[in-house]
């Protein structure tokens, strides 16, 4: 991968490293109005100081990057790299339209947040969590460390190389990926892994069994849970999960109501002795 930075100067490599470290703090001072604006600014300061020696240009660049910024954190160094490459052009060419920088930034934020959130929050975190939970349940003290490693190693690689790719390839790269349809193919592939994991975890983590049996004349004539298991193992947990999903997706029931409802129904069922 060292090929990516082969053509860059030592100074540029240093600034890419600074952007990598500074972008950790993207959401340190999130405001409702501008989200990660100050973090984006903080990450861009080395570039701004490098490209603009004139005080007025520097101020203009500082104002430019204090604009609304919100995306998936793992994707942010890529956008910063693209932005830095455009700032470089802006500082070199007098006819460069500085407004296009924020336009490109904004156009990258949305799609990259979408991919990043589903890959990192929806898939990678779920895999890391699922593995760590089963380790923790068997008493393995390394569970939290393994969770952090499984999640963070890929994220840090994406952040590290993302910045380099963004800077060297510029904004044409991402639109190229879009045209080739690679983004959609990648998102679909990641979602497949995610959905399979969620299905697997529905089976291993959602637990619900019926204690109530049909009794006639002091004799148990029907063991409800055994009967249900013969139909399909885990039919109740699966049914409950699909019901929750349906309520969330089609009925727009809020998550807090779902949690509260589940609590109340469980207590009610315990009171009447069904579970």
């Amino acid at each position: 991968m060292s090929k990516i930075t082969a053509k860059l100067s030592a100074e540029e490599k240093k600034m890419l490293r600074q952007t990598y470290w500074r972008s950790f703090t993207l959401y340190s001072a999130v405001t409702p109005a501008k989200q990660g604006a100050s973090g984006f600014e903080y990450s861009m300061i080395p570039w701004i100081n490098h490209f603009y020696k004139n005080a007025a240009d520097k101020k203009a660049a500082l104002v430019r990057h204090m604009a609304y910024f919100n995306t998936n954190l793992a994707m942010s160094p890529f956008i910063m790299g693209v932005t830095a490459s455009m700032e470089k052009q802006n500082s070199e060419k007098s006819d460069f339209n500085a407004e296009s920088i924020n336009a490109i930034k904004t156009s990258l934020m949305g799609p990259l947040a979408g991919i990043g959130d589903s890959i990192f929050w929806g898939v990678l975190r779920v895999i890391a969590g699922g593995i760590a939970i089963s380790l923790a349940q068997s008493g393995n003290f390394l569970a939290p460390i393994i969770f952090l490693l499984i999640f963070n190693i890929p994220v840090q690689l994406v952040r590290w190389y993302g910045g380099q790719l963004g800077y060297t390839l510029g904004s044409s790269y991402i639109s190229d990926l879009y045209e080739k349809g690679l983004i959609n193919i990648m998102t679909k592939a990641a979602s497949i892994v995610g959905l399979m994991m969620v299905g697997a975890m529905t089976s291993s983590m959602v637990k619900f069994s019926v204690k109530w049996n049909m009794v006639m004349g002091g004799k148990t004539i029907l063991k409800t849970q055994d009967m249900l298991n013969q139909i399909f193992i885990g039919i109740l947990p699966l049914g409950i999960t699909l019901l929750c999903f349906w309520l969330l997706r089609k009925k727009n029931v809020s998550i807090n109501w779902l949690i509260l409802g589940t609590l109340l129904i469980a207590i009610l069922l315990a009171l009447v002795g069904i579970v």
Partner: protein
Amino acid sequence: MYEAFAVAIVVFLTVGGQELLGLTMLGRPIVVGPLIGLLLGDLPTGLTIGASLETIFMGIVNIGGASAAEPGLASALAVAFAINMHGGLGVALPLAIPLGIIGLQIKTLLYVAVVGPFASRFDTLAAEGNERGIVRLHFGLWGLQWFLYALIPFFAMLVGSSATQAALKLIPAVIVHGLTVAGNVLPAVGMAMLMKILWDKNISVFYFLGFLIVAYFKIPLIAVAVMGVIIAILIAQRDFQVHQLQAKPVAASAVDHSDESKSQQEDDDFFG
């Protein structure tokens, strides 16, 4: 006093820390639980409750600032109380859920009322070209916001421990049983949240495949993940081929044809 301090520090460094060290998942229950357990001298309880709360809060994602609960504060306090009372998930769960919701409300309040007003100050500093001021404010606001947030667990531990203990003793056994049942069902809500992110009609069968292979074959989750990656690679390869075929302009088909027949021949050689 030590306990209150320890819990407050953990909340500050994990829930606050993950905002400074973005997207590192430091504030998840599976990390916070064992950490509290370690500091309060009962690592096994911290680990098991942390894992249980992680399954419940699995679906709580923090995307674009929108969330349903703040799992970090909830886990820290629930685990601390459970350790103090020598209780299990039955003690931790009824505390964790309301705490998660309250925690989010307070987090939102701090973000709107404490950090929010500084947005215009940032703009002024940028217009003045005051780089150092921007950096100072950027980190200062982080410290202020999470210091204030960490005061909640501090005082909750200081005054809440004995009161919570007394209140929990009043709960009848059948309700505690109901709460334990709820704790086992609640991951369903989390799974539903995740499905909402990932669901697409064309690939929904894979959800059921994942469920089936664990329910019937008891395959460990890591193996399911690897199987999922293999299936995803196969499908991505096929999608890519289909996409390339579609992308080829009709006019160029004659030229492409020879290429294809060449690769066809190579395949034949390979299998022959």
